[in-house]
């Protein structure tokens, strides 16, 4: 798996880009901008459902969510560039593994939210309190995204993974 990813990076020029003088910091900056956009849209929407900034209609605030999805898409792509450039530094890294697990939980939470909760949230008045199910989904979402940022930062702490990773 690491070898295949690395090969892919070499063939597609990702490796060249990421190892150019400013490649890595430039992609890191874009990654951070993407996560700020995600928090600015999804994080604020979650906070509103949890009772912050009562008065702002949740349905109207939800119009920011496409920007959060955009940030997410940017980060999946830029994140792929990191992983492809140094696969063994990520795939065997516990911080990266927990990060992926939290992303899976956040993804399931999104499916749950839009399938069962959003229709009721969308029609709430500005001053309305969100239903309990929405608060639960918002708390899960915020916890996951905060955890994902923490894990992202921790990836560099566990690098290189060979020193501690007993199954590598």
């Amino acid at each position, binding site marked *: 798996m690491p070898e295949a990813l690395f090969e892919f990076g070499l063939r597609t020029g990702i490796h060249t880009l990421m190892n150019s003088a400013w490649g890595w910091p430039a992609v890191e900056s874009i990654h951070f901008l993407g996560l700020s956009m995600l928090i600015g849209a999804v994080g604020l929407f979650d906070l509103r459902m949890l009772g*912050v900034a009562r008065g*702002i209609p949740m349905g109207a605030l939800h119009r*920011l969510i496409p920007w959060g999805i955009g940030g997410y898409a940017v980060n999946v792509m830029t994140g792929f560039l990191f992983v492809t450039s140094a696969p063994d530094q990520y795939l065997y890294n516990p911080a990266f593994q927990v990060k992926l697990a939290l992303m899976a939980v956040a993804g399931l939470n999104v499916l749950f939210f839009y399938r069962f909760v959003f229709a009721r949230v969308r029609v709430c008045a*500005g001053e309305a309190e969100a239903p309990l199910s929405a608060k639960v989904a918002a708390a899960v979402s915020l916890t996951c995204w905060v955890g994902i*940022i923490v894990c992202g*930062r921790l990836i560099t*702490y566990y690098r290189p993974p060979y020193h501690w990773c007993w199954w590598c």
Partner: protein
Amino acid sequence: MHYFLWLEGTGFSIWMRESGLAFFSSLILHALGMAFLVGAHLATDLRILGVAPGVPLSLIRRFRPVTWAALIVVSASGVLLLVAYPAKALTNPVFYLKLLAATVALLIGRSLYRGVLRDVTGDSGQVPGKARALAALSIALWITTITSGRVLAYTYKVLMASDPR
């Protein structure tokens, strides 16, 4: 440099460098705080530029406590990281660019809060061109802040005053 030498030698600075927990907690809190600080500002700027028009401009300030909390976390963790490696950042011009961009962005945020974000009549309808220009400038400044912050990790000439390379 004398001042950096003195600060580096204090017990607190040594502890910040040598305790992995203290240093990494500061790094993590700085990243988390920045995500919320920049995120909230970007969302406000986008609203001023016409995204999510149903969100009343005059109510955005109810998110202000989130911004304040993020600013406090970012400043405190930033100072701790400075205490750990004062010479690393303070001898790097990029650090002053980051500080300048963030300060101007925060001042723009404040001026928008005192202007268009207090004006109930602006809740529906077009935001004045000046406020829109400030919002666009704010986005550019936050991008500058993030980029220069990241670039800091790659451009420092001195890690510690006591150990010039």
